[in-house]
């Protein structure tokens, strides 16, 4: 019954050397995916919205719809 002596040391180090690069890599991928999947489209959507935004026109439309308390629709 002469089995080889099992590994007694360096177990945590071995695990970290394997898993930490993977963890960092996956985190980086997640961050990049979020940036280009969510934040960049959102910034673009806001930029595009305000490029063609006429505040006065929107205000008048809302006024006519009757959602304000301080200004009444032009009919009344």
């Amino acid at each position: 019954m002469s089995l080889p002596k099992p590994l007694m040391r360096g177990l945590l180090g071995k695990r970290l050397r394997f898993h930490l690069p993977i963890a960092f890599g996956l985190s980086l991928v997640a961050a990049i995916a979020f940036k280009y999947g969510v934040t960049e489209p959102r910034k673009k959507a806001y930029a595009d919205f305000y490029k063609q935004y006429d505040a006065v026109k929107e205000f008048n439309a809302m006024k006519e719809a009757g959602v304000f308390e301080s200004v009444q629709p032009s009919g009344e």
Partner: protein
Amino acid sequence: MLKMMLQLIAGRVSSLVARRATLALTTSSARMASHAPDPEVTEAVDMSRPMYWDRLDTPLPDKLYKDELSAAEKSLKEKEKGPWSQLTNEEKIALYRLSFHQTYAEMNQPKSEWKTVVGGIFFFVGFTALVVWWQRVYVYPPRPRTFDDEWQAKQLQRMLDMRINPIEGFSSKWDYEKGQWK
């Protein structure tokens, strides 16, 4: 099964107790003997003493399974003190059975207990449904008017008028020129 085991242990424990000459223990066993025997409940197990149990995570319980050995078993125990190569296989198994009640294979036998558990879960979930139904009929207040279809339609229109979330959300999905959803 467990009750039988506990009774066995209690029987052994109380006989161990009777063997010791200390005053407190004999008076307690005398007290127990004077009670009328109750068919359901035997003497309480003394949990301050080491106990035996079959558990997957406890390979070596606090004490051996059999405390009182017959003469044959005692001689086997004496033989165990010598070289084990002189024990036959049957003797080895007998020694094992002296120390342990069930093997791991026997402990791991599949049981049907899960069916009872799942059945009980379903039963009580069903009962809860009946309780909720009764509450719906007898306890709940009248439905708020804000749930009516007409009110909901007016609410949606007001949200569009106020331009709720016009960039990426609600109002961004509405085409204001054509008056319809995009």
